């Protein structure tokens, strides 16, 4: 798998109202990589994700997945939204099965895969529950299972834990890291939380707003054997502080 984003710009609106939201974004993502885009609101990080998902088209530049230009949404790029994306009338299992049945896979295959991916996210017991009967963290795990069930080449995570309480967010981060280690998935994470990005991603791009652009890239070399320990370790805290001050200076220059 090779996702290539080259010199992508995006503007919304026409004529005098035309507004440049992304300028010259380039990066590459390969199989098994976990990458994060970090930026404050208005940095266009969600737009990057929507462009890759095919929900928007770039104004300039190209996005290619394994050499094929992205023209529209497809199940090879699974997406997890911040919230409200489970179908409230379907049970957890039916939500996970939704993409498979849209693709017209046969019944026994759907049943098998649904059970497997519910198990992968640790929700085998919740199969028959409706989304409103699940906690916020469990709902996002179902959303992740649903995106994984169609076996996308890359998983796009748009602030997946942004709406969760701090404690649940931390356990979800550990869950996602564990999932990545177990399944070897390829992921692109959008977040405004530097800590989250450093904990999970091997490569972190820092984005600046107005217009959105990548201003700094870090290859994170940290020992991730124990995330709880890593969170409070000295090198982690130093790196976090360094990036936080960079983000602050970006915001400060706008005031």
């Amino acid at each position, binding site marked *: 798998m090779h996702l290539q984003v080259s010199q992508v710009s995006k503007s919304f609106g026409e004529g005098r109202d035309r507004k440049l939201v992304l300028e010259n974004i380039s990066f590459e993502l390969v199989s098994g990589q976990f990458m994060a885009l970090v930026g404050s609101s208005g940095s266009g990080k969600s737009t990057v994700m929507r462009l890759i998902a*095919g*929900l928007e088209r770039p104004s300039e530049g190209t996005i290619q997945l394994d050499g094929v230009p992205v023209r529209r949404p497809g*199940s090879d790029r699974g997406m997890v939204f911040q919230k409200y*994306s489970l*179908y409230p009338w379907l049970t957890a299992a039916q939500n996970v099965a*939704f993409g498979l049945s849209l693709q017209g896979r046969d019944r026994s295959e759907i049943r098998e895969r649904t059970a497997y991916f519910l198990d992968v996210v640790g929700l085998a017991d919740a199969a028959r529950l409706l989304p409103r009967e699940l906690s916020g963290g469990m709902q996002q795990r179902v959303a992740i299972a649903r*995106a994984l069930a*169609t076996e996308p080449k890359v998983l796009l995570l748009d602030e997946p834990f942004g709406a969760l309480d701090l404690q649940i967010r931390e356990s979800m981060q550990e869950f996602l890291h564990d999932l990545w280690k177990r399944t070897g998935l390829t992921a692109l994470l959008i977040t405004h939380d530097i800590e989250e990005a450093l904990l999970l991603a091997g490569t972190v791009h820092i984005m600046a707003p107005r217009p959105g652009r990548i201003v700094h890239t870090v290859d994170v070399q940290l020992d991730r054997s124990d995330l709880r320990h890593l969170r409070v370790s000295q090198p982690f805290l130093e790196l976090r502080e360094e990036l936080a001050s960079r983000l602050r200076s970006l915001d400060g220059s706008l005031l």
Partner: protein
Amino acid sequence: MARSPALRRFVSHPWVLGVLGILTVFLVWWLVTASGMVDKLFLPGPGAVWLAGSDQFQRGILVADALASIKRVFIGFVISAGLALPIGIAMGTNRTICHFLEPLMALIRYMPAPAFIPLLIIYFGLEELPKVMLIFIGTFFFNTLMIMDAVKFVPSELVETALTLGGRGLPILTRVVAPYIAPQVLDTYRINMASAWNLVIVAELVAANEGLGKRISLAQRFLRTDEIFVGLIVIGLIGLMIDLGFRFMMRRACSWAN
């Protein structure tokens, strides 16, 4: 106030209080008429109304009238609801169609449906068609615009999720939009059914051979206030039953939305 928990639970049950409210009005009605304060010609007692009602029932008029009115409402409303659904969905999903139709519908919606009655009689005579048309005119535009709104408020994440799972076009409509708006559509129908029921009575007051509204206007001619009361109560009861029927359907079909 209720002392024991059992009694308190009983009283706080919504049905108990609701029935109590209705019984209170009946009691006052009975007291006022039994005391002889009001001329029986203007306000007949509950007993007289009951007798008038059972007399109409035994002669078969009551059922025939009710069926005639229900049939008109049913035909008019089914056409209205059936057309409003695809057009409302089309307006909610397609901006061009919406811009083309919305001002027109918003305009007609504010023309009171009963004001169409003279025109409908001139065009279609005194048979069933003008009454069915009136119900259609009186509910179609509301149904359509309310369904359009329901479609517009489908969260974009739900549609976009389906797109990223490999969905397109029609399956998204039938498997995402339709189930999401189902509770609102049923509620739209429930609300607009009330005006359909109003309109059929209005139409029958103006011109009809049978129907609950027709019976009321006949009763007025002969100063039979007891029969007017029969008509009013039966109309209310049928309306209430339709309303409860819709609520029941909603609970059964869309339990996730409660």
